[in-house]
């Protein structure tokens, strides 16, 4: 009996530990988000579109408001007290971002969004380093903002775009990438850290190591990954990495470009204007040092402060708790959605091959329902307060590959609940009756 008692106690202790470390207090988290408190047409708001734009907590709104009320000046311009506070806040935000992703402070460039960050890589680094006949490798998972700037170079200077396909689980085909890199013409590989359609996370470290072995650089699009998983640029050894504030529960209007110092220093400026110059004469100019070289014009001060506040805010929750919570939500969504007749999940559409949350799937899940266009479905759901994304999600090459024009996406964040998943599935059932 003493043995049994001990074993039981151990089990109890273990159970307590797991409960404490793996559960977020979702109610307490939700209370911090003003937007989540509203009703739409008498229905509670069910926000399942965080992959497009996440909602923002009070702590971030208050930090931005405080900055605008109290510390509004032009960073790096002016000697007065408000300009000094603005400079301090702006540079302190840069430091917060750098520490968040394991970078050096001067390797963090503030941009408008992830799209602008990706354009700097293509237009500045690419302009200097990619010539006619060189190859830029993209996977079918990439977002248009990782694709289009390179397609512009294809038109303008004749570079080649090589597409790396995906397997039936949605993961990039590593053997295709390896084959491509062997040819030695690839200068840059662009890879998403987490697909904004399929929710898969490509093996970044393997891809980066493989690319580097062939002399190619790697740009990581961490726009989705950043809100769901820790990111460490030193550990990844990526050359560039981008993300935006608004997908991390932060403000719109601010994005981040990380680049290795040596690369950023050698690159020409992107936009020209105030703040990015060393010296200007009537006949020419010299560029400022990094990071200012890439920050022409008055920067987004309150947004940078908001981004730092959102990083401080999310850092109070352990990543493993966030991931466990979101995996539970995706699993619940997959299980419940799988019961809807005629619903098929991307990417393989097989009823008997339901995607697995956690191991393969993070942040979102996309599907089609025969007979109901995603735009119709999400319009009807929207009127019931349920917010989903419909369309090609800025991933037309992926949808072309899957031979569908559009899909419906459910994406989750730190504030979603299993009850919301239940409401979603019930509402889809009703919407399908309306649309039938």
């Amino acid at each position, binding site marked *: 009996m003493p043995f049994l008692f001990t074993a039981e106690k151990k089990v109890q202790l273990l159970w307590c530990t797991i409960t404490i470390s793996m559960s977020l207090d979702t109610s307490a988290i939700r209370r911090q988000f003003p937007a989540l408190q509203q009703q739409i047409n008498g229905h509670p708001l069910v926000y399942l579109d965080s992959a497009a734009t996440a909602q923002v907590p009070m702590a971030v709104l208050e930090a931005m408001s405080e900055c605008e009320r109290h510390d509004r000046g032009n960073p*790096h*311009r*002016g*000697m007065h007290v408000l*300009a*000094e506070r603005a*400079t*301090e806040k702006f*540079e302190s935000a840069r430091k917060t971002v750098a520490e968040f992703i394991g970078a*050096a*402070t*001067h390797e963090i460039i503030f941009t408008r969004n992830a799209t602008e960050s990706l354009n700097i890589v293509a237009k500045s680094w690419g302009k200097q380093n990619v010539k006619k006949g060189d190859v830029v490798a993209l996977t079918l998972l990439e977002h248009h903002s990782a694709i289009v700037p390179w397609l512009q170079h294809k038109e303008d200077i004749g570079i080649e775009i090589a597409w790396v396909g995906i397997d039936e689980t949605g993961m990039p085909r590593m053997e295709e990438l390896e084959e491509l890199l062997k040819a030695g013409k690839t200068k840059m590989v662009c890879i998403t850290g987490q697909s904004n359609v399929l929710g898969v996370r490509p093996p970044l470290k393997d891809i980066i190591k493989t690319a580097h072995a062939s002399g190619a650089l790697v740009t990581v699009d961490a726009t989705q990954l950043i809100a769901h998983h820790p990111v460490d640029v030193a550990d990844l050894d990526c050359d560039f990495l981008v993300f935006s504030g608004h997908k991390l529960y932060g403000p719109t209007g601010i994005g981040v470009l990380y680049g290795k*110092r040596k690369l950023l*220093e050698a690159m020409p400026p992107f936009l020209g204007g105030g703040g990015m*110059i*060393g*010296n200007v004469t009537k006949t020419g100019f010299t560029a*400022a*040092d*990094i990071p200012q070289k890439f920050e022409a014009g008055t920067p987004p001060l309150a947004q940078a402060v908001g981004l730092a506040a959102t990083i401080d805010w999310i850092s109070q929750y352990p990543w493993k708790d966030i991931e466990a919570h979101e995996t539970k939500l995706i699993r619940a969504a997959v299980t419940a959605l799988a019961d809807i007749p005629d619903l098929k999940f991307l990417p393989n559409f097989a009823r008997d091959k339901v995607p697995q949350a956690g191991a393969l799937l993070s942040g979102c899940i996309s599907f089609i329902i025969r007979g109901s266009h995603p735009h119709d479905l999400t319009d009807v759901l929207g009127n019931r307060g349920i917010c989903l994304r419909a369309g090609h999600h800025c991933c037309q090459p992926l949808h072309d590959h899957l031979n569908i024009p559009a899909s419906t996406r459910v994406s989750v964040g730190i504030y979603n609940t299993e009850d919301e998943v239940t409401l979603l599935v019930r509402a889809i059932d009703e919407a399908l009756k309306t649309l039938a």
Partner: protein
Amino acid sequence: MDLYAENILEHYRNPRGKGTIVPTDWHVTHAEQNPSCGDELTIAFTITNGVMTDVTWEGSGCAISQAGMSILAEELVGKTSNDIERMTKNDMYALLGVPVGPRRFKCALLGLHTLKNALRKHAGKTPQSWIDTVELADQ
């Protein structure tokens, strides 16, 4: 303490070691700028067996940059190139003896930055960036 302490203003009004530089008279001349204030400094020195034997400078700009250079110039004769390589931004702040905030650090460090790059030029090295002068000294 005020940034514009009497010592700073006194050096600004009566700069030490300032002169007109004829490049052929010197072993090294080197110029740097701080675009935010429009500060400019040029340093010239002679160096014998690794020891600074004579230093002058010319420049224009804000009181902090010009007084900083003046105060720094008083320290240099007799210093070895190793002494100067070891100088950090905190040594410069100590020489100035006034609080330097984020909007003026480039003014305060322009003299040191120019000096370090003059020495690097003399040694046949590429100039260091502001990041090396300012940020990496913290790490």
